[in-house]
């Protein structure tokens, strides 16, 4: 089995001015620590929330967050704007763009193993939701610069699964 990254022509969308601090308040009230002090897990959760809010703001219908199946977890499940027949399974990758933890291209972390996990999750999702015709795999990459600034890239149809 072969999985092809960026096989179906991902489109890039950049939204440079996302505000992590504002988003964070909604997610974890009381957690006031600076982004610098967050653990990887906390940073990831915050990034997923930011991404979901951004998608919703762009007219996407969020169907679920952290959707679980026996094969793993899907960060965001959503109908893209105007595409009610398609369900996008979105993987969010968040990295701090600071000092030693700098990773300029977080989307590279979506490797073959992760793609295979998403493929299985997609099968699982299609089993549970027979009304869904087509799934799509999106990747959202976030580079967080500081409390108030992050850079976001949204790869639409980031990869397809070939046999």
């Amino acid at each position, binding site marked *: 089995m*072969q999985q*092809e990254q960026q*096989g*179906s*022509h991902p489109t890039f969308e950049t939204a440079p001015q996302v505000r992590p601090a504002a988003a964070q308040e909604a997610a974890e009230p009381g957690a006031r620590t600076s982004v610098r002090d967050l653990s990887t897990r906390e940073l990831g959760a915050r990034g997923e929330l930011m991404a979901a809010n951004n998608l919703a703001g762009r007219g996407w219908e969020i169907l679920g967050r952290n959707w679980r199946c026996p094969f793993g977890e899907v960060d965001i499940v959503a109908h893209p704007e105007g595409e009610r*027949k*398609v369900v996008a399974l979105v993987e969010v990758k968040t990295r701090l763009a600071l000092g030693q933890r700098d990773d300029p291209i977080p989307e590279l972390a979506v490797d073959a193993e992760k793609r295979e996990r998403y*493929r299985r999750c*997609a*099968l699982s999702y*299609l089993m549970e939701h027979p009304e*869904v*015709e*087509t*799934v*799509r*795999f999106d990747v959202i990459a976030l580079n967080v610069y500081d409390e108030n600034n992050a850079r976001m890239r949204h790869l639409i*149809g980031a990869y*397809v*699964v*070939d*046999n």
Partner: protein
Amino acid sequence: MGADVAAVKTAALRGADALPVDVEVSVSGGIPGLDIVGMPDHSVLEARSRVRCALRSSGFELPRLHVTINLAPGEIRKSGTAFDLPIAVAILLATHQLPPSIARDALLVGELALDGGVCPVRGDMAYAMLAESLGLALVTSAESGLAGGWETGARGVRTLGQLRQGIEGLPCLSSHAGARDEGPAAPSLDFADVVDQELAKRAMTIAAAGRHGVLMVGPPGSGKTMLARRLPTILPPLTEDERAQALLVHSVAGQDPGAVTRGERPFRAPHHSISTGGLVGGGRPVTPGEISLAHNGVLFLDELPEFDRRSLQALRQPLEDRTVSIVRVDGVYSFPCDFQLVAAANPCPCGHLGDPGHECTCSAAKVSAYQARIGGPLMDRIDVVVDVARPKTSRVIQGGFGTGSEEMAREVAEAREFRAWREKDAGEGRDPVAAARLDLRAQTTFESLADGLALGGRAIVRVARVARTIADIEHRERVSEDDVVEALGFRSRALT
């Protein structure tokens, strides 16, 4: 949404044959991606990336849907890049980007470039033959080297986007190939270029007239290679049928047919480092070897003793059957290989044995070991052995002209004509010695000389065959004493 299905006709290459294959495409929802089933090998699977890019750069769309591609029948192993174009077209039909009528009467082959260009593939000739037998129009790359009259029935496509105009809108392949020169161009080689080798030229005439195998023995620089290269110039031109066969083998092997297109006989001179597979055919996928590329032409083995012994052994069965069978797990592959064998060898490792101008530095043991390598079963197929001596220096410097190809070709053609007439009259005898029809004096001379030289049965048969051909050249129904004596001269002294 029900699955959208479309089918396009193409073919898979197996040996020298093209087998019909249907490319079926089903487009449905689910996980986006391209699946290819029907025993594709790696080169076929790579079509997915090429098709994707080619569709996009030609302005078509590949929807984010699950596309299943089936290459039917599924039990034939598929290999190569010729499926790119039919797969792309089938996807376009299934996604309603092209009208379904477009590929109804066509057989499509071609490799796609990422920019949507259609590149030529190996085996166009086999595809063209299959398309004709199925009553379909072959659609292949506009750069295809298809020749021999087959290009008129085929249509050439330059880019995937051109298909929007329909198959009928595509230009005929022959209109692309305007630059190709048809008609017999004057052969540049001529036996007249070879100075002072009248005996060897006579041997070549005899070999060409009787389709005998030839072995030339002589020191380096004596003109053996020059002589061999000029043999095709005295052979009768290819018939329409023979040319089609030769073109097919070249096409399937992915080789440029070159002069074969103009009706000249193929001439193959593989280097002695050749592998057995390269000589008789093989590889994966199985492709014809040098002996098949020399089909209806000449196979020249220069430095015969340097060839791998196993490779030469592998020539025995093909020489006998004029077709070579390669057996693999998935069956037998057959290629034609009716060629004329011409070999050249030095008389010893240093090459100067028997050369009056040079001293041979080889030990006796070395010489006999070297010559033993030439002997053996292959020698059964070589009737004419001729010593090629170094030409006289003065002749080379003065640049005299000897017998030319034109004269020799006429002799050969007449001898073959006479032979055909004689065989029609008398029928081909089973015993080659009896079939030679020696006259009485020839018979007594042959008997006494064969006794004196202690010729074995094999050697006698060989001499009789050559004597018969010499008589044919002289237009004699019965072989005369002179013919036998001359034939005995073309017998190997060192090697039997």
